[in-house]
């Protein structure tokens, strides 16, 4: 099930980051392959958010290498990460309520035609992207984001990342604060992304969600990468063991916790 290529889309090696005396990340290695969902698990303060901020270009690591498609890169700012094709879908979504879906999806990268906003072309592209992703619940791409449900808003934020041809989509708690049906919708979308060849790096506290969509689970503890395993070599109890103690000698399936 896991797509293992020789050269992953993104390879982190030896990433270290400290804030003053606090060591947030210590010698972290992680491969993020294309076409797969990699979940990042860990307790609060384990360093998950710091790690994705290093990938998104918001923090510069103190040491270590970020290798993108086989080449070492320096990400000096979110714009540099975005230019490579790394897009982050934030927890608070970063959408403008008063703008419509098309305007939000193109915000900052509007298409112009003779100096004017090219609404037709943008509307086409936005509608096409949404239908490719099988987001069919929105009535019109010209409706304001304020009128959308939480799941629809999350879908718009994800579709924006796809529209901008991001190869790596980072999601921070995409299903927090969503209902059951909406969570399902967003998880479907995450799988669709991976099916289209995008790499997805997902942070979630919800183990059920993680086991539903992830191909690989990376567990962090106290700023270190404890283990990275394919989904069929891990279960919820092992994840909890790894998160809390850093090791686990359980066998997969030795418990009845396995996600159904």
């Amino acid at each position: 099930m896991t797509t293992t290529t020789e050269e992953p889309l993104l390879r982190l090696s030896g990433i270290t980051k400290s804030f003053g005396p606090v060591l947030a990340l210590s010698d972290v290695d992680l491969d993020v392959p294309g076409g797969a969902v990699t979940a990042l698990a860990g307790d609060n303060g384990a360093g998950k958010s710091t790690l994705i901020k290093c990938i998104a270009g918001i923090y510069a690591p103190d040491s270590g290498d970020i290798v993108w498609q086989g080449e070492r890169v320096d990400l000096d700012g979110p714009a540099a990460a975005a230019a490579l094709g790394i897009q982050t879908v934030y927890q608070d979504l970063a959408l403008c309520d008063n703008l419509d879906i098309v305007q939000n999806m193109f915000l900052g990268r509007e298409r112009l035609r003779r100096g004017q906003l090219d609404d037709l072309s943008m509307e086409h592209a936005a509608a096409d992207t949404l239908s490719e992703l099988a987001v069919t619940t929105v009535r019109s791409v010209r409706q304001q984001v304020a009128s959308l449900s939480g799941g629809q808003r999350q879908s718009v934020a994800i579709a924006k990342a796809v529209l901008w041809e991001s190869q790596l989509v980072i999601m921070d708690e995409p299903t927090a604060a969503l209902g059951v049906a909406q969570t399902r919708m967003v998880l479907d979308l995450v799988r669709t992304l991976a099916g289209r060849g995008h790499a997805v790096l997902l942070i979630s506290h919800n183990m059920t969600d993680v086991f539903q969509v992830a191909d690989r689970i990376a567990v962090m503890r106290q700023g270190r990468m404890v283990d990275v395993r394919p989904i069929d070599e891990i279960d919820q109890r092992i994840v909890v063991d790894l998160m809390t103690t850093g090791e686990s000698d359980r066998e997969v399936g030795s418990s009845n916790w396995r996600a159904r």
Partner: protein
Amino acid sequence: MSVRDSVTRSRQRPPSGDGAQVMTAREYLGLTWRSIKGGETGVLPVIGGLLLVSVIFESLDQHFLTTGNLVNLLIQAAVYALLAMAEVFVLLLGEIDLSVGFVAGIGAVVLAWLAQPQVGWPWWAAIAAALVATAAIGLLQGSLITRIGLPSFVVTLGGLLFWNGVMLFVLGNGGSILIQDDVLNAIASGTLSRLAGWAVMLVAVGVFGVLVWRRDARRRTSGLPAPPAVLTAAKIGAALLGGALLILLANADRGVLAPVYGLPYVVLVVLGVLVVWSYLLGRRRFGLYVYAVGGNAEAARRAGINLARIRTLGFVLCSFTAGIAGIVYASRLRSISTSLDGGTLVLYAVAGAVIGGTSLFGGRGKVIHGVLGGLVIAAIDNGMGLLGFSAAAKYVVTAVVLIVAVTIDAVARRNRPA
């Protein structure tokens, strides 16, 4: 067991995809009606309010809906409408500008001072200088607000006092400067000839018609949801009808002793500012960014929008438009004096924008709201003046209308889905 296995689900109908999407008039109007019920009331409440005010005043005094008074009303509304349009820019950004009244005053002082015979600047140079001066004030205030991060309320409150002081200083206590230039005085009191009025109206509606028709036709052929040709034609027809009514109204003789007729230039000034600013906010990237910053500044920042630049420009455009209002004000009085009440003007400007439908909290509003709100305020002022009410009563009624307008907006917005 999981979503992983169900990726290849059947694709449903896209939200707006290929194939003919041109709707029937009924469908399109139904869609519009649904968005109105959903809280997107647009300009409907203020137009309703304007009609209501007209009916009330006409029933109390048959002079209100005479041609003479209506044209007079348009001239009176011009300054309020221009100031309210100025305020729309900063309200959209979620800011406020309390200085527009006295910034308009500074524009008027610069204009009148330079156009004096002893200084002798030509009228166009005096206008340009007045607009440059007010835009520079906007740049100064906007820079203080965005670069240093001071609250706009405080900076522009300071501006209100400061520019009032500068005006008093230049004009002297109780002083004034007369305007003797014919062109400058004609801005507010001059009119087009009857024929020119028709010609200007037909050209304007013609250009509008071609642009609207081309735009809707492009939508129809592109396969996106589009209004049917009938509705596009109806829109153009309505513009023609409105234009014809305006010209008929303006061309009727409204003089008492000598014949007076024709469309006042100042109406064209207001319409011109309305069209240019609506285009800027509606069709250009800058306008979109103004809405984005007002709606969610953090999202705008993450999208790579330069917040400081957009905000500063908003204040520049606000003060610039206030400068236009100042020129019209001075032209109407044929002078500028210390009797200019910039405090009341700014309150009317904010009230006009809000009565028109612009939100005080940023991100929602249009330039047209300023014009319609300005008309409502002028109508109350004018109608109560005809009835012989005092300024005190006018303030009270304007206040009630303001509160009613905000209430309508709040109630309509409650219908929005979460």
